[in-house]
């Protein structure tokens, strides 16, 4: 499963600091309860892997892909409340990770 993927944990940061194309793992959601409910209802749990697809121009919302390819967009202000852990993928195992991403942890 996911644990077999080689990854190097680098540092904690918040979602708004991520660049387009970067992957990360969710650590925890904010204190903001409405945001918390919404993320859970979108099917996200702490520990899940996410990938940033794009950042809209002029500080617009950041769009994120998770699970088997579902996406959501979130304003930077709210993205600040979401803590993530950097993931660095071993290039050789990219295909393996793709193979696993449909599973749930």
């Amino acid at each position, binding site marked *: 499963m996911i644990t077999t993927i080689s990854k190097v944990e680098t540092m904690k940061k918040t979602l708004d600091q991520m660049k387009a194309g970067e992957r990360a793992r969710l650590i925890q959601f904010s204190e903001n309860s409405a945001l918390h409910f919404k993320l859970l209802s979108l099917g996200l749990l702490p520990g899940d892997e996410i990938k940033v697809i794009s950042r809209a121009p002029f500080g617009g919302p950041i769009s994120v892909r998770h699970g088997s*390819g579902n996406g959501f967009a979130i304003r930077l202000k709210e993205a600040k409340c979401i803590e993530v852990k950097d993931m660095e993928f071993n290039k050789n195992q990219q295909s393996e990770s793709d193979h696993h991403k449909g599973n749930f942890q």
Partner: protein
Amino acid sequence: MDKEVTNSQATKGPPNVHTSTPRENANTSDDSTSHSKERLILVGLPNAGKSTIFNLLTGGHRKVSNYSGITVDVGTGPLVTNTDDNKSYEVTDLPGLYNLNPSSFDEGLTLSYLLKLKKNFTYQKVIIVVDWQRLASSLGLALSILDVIKEDALIVINKDDSHEVDAQKRTLLEEQLGVPVLPLSAIEGDLSTLDHFIRHSTTKESKETNRHFTEAPLVLTTMANSFIQYDLGVKLPYEVYAGEEGEKKVAASINDHLKKARQFLNKDKLRENEKNAEMSEKIDRLALHPLFGGIIFIAVFYLLFSSIYTWAAPAMDFTEGIVLALGDFIGQSLPEGLLKSLIVDGIFAGVGGVVIFLPQIMILFFLMSLLEQSGYISRAALIVDRIMSWFGLGGKAFLPYLSGYACAIPGIMAARTIPNPKERYATIMTLPLITCSARLPVYILLVGTFVPSYEVAGLLNSQALAFFFLYFLGSLAALVIAKVLRLSYFKGESSQFIMDLPRFQRPSLRVALYQSWLKGRSFLKKAGTIILGLSLVIWLLSTFPRTSPEKLTGLSENQVAALELENSALGRIGHAMEPVIRPLGMDWKIGVGLLVSFGARELFVSAMGTLYAVGDADENSKGLKEKLKSDVDEVTGKPLFSMATAWSILMFFVFGLQCTSTLAILKKESGSWKIPLISFGYMFVLAYTASFIAYKILS
């Protein structure tokens, strides 16, 4: 109003959902107490395909339910497969919800139906629609619904377009959930399988033994409870907690259900469907790109509006030709006199003048439907979100505004999804500034007649640009006014912005054609009822009282017609209001047109049609365009319609709130006359000022 099937995240809720207050519930007319009839309700995540299933079950051609304004009817219709021999079913479609802790009015409405908090609404079975592309989250919601309801439930796994859920997986799921499961592709429209499933599956085990997934009772936060409407005397099957305690309990409950759903799926080795996921990501990288995203956005919407112009022109000429020929034919076979005038000048010039815009309306809605189905609309919302937030609006305001391009009424209703009341009011008060399809006939008539057509920069067309500019101006004004409201009377935080980005999908032509046909039909219906009726009134007022024959002796035919029109009731009204509209470069005929347009905007076109037909003795009918071009100002003797006058009228239509239905819906949604009156007032001031400025600049 008819149901829409789209791939965007707005309220998919039927437009006729009525956010009633308990007080109003006395008026409901739901009656499901008859024993032969069973009521089903459809619940699930937004965009899971509930409305598609609803249309499939109730028949696409059937008019589902009227927007009556008083009854709480949440999109209900009988099954098409009901016959005398089998059991009769009715199905009710509810707005989508993310969890059982509502965060806006539409979600609250669904929960109050689901929990039977309205005395006169009941149901026997729940169809939970699970989205195969969002399996874990929608199954989590399904589990939480199964935990709170006592009724029989069925689960439909929708969007299984490539038939991946085989018999084995289905059985496994049924065993775990304790309810019948049907994999379905609603868009493929296999009605017989779905119908058989609904009629013949029964819950396998009793709720007590198996359908109990978590121990937690249903808990709501105080905020969520405020979105729920219930009748007095109904026992609430949930507990309300304030503050942190409530938030913790709710989060724990959603969390538990989601985890449970994942456990099931892992055990079954069921994976979420990845169809279109890779392609969607590729398109998204482009469509949401900081630079290309903006370019694509402008190109898509320019193409949308210019296609109404360029593609519809031949179709419109064709329709106009038919209407004119028919009018001529009937005119020639009738004797001179009032009857002929009534039919040719009243009906053909009035109603016919509006009907010729049918192709534009149908093309607009066809293209909008393609765009909505593709999934691009949510990306567009994201692109403009930054702009929206500058103007004090959250991302949730985008979709109501977008509906406003079709008609302000569904847009104002869609604003129910905005949880923050101040933001919601700022949205609904500015929504009528968005260019709705009723303004189209006026824009097309005036732009087509008075803006010369030439190429701009080699690939854009001047008329299409003028058209685009009018749309832009209305939208900009809406945002600016919203900002003013948000800085003053409706000051406060804007709602959070997390938006689902559904995967891109190939839009269905069938659905788009159907949507376009529905809108075309309702446009023709409007033309055949309100516009016909008011055209007759306009004809009557422009024909009577008759001028005494002595006054007409010695005058040419054209002079007689002109004098008779001036002496008519409408002529007198028009002349009386001339001092007010002269500064705008308008004469009394245009003034009359503006006056009647307060009933419905299209009436401007039909009034112009009738006035120019009555006041013109010419037997050979010309199109309204030629008549407008050749009209001469009585005072100055110059051509009446200059570019300045045309733009002055256009400005009036961009900013004016000439729509009685919009005023009525504003009153209903806000609960008082204050909001509609203020909206009408400020828009009138804007309209008058803008017309004045446009005329002064251009003349």
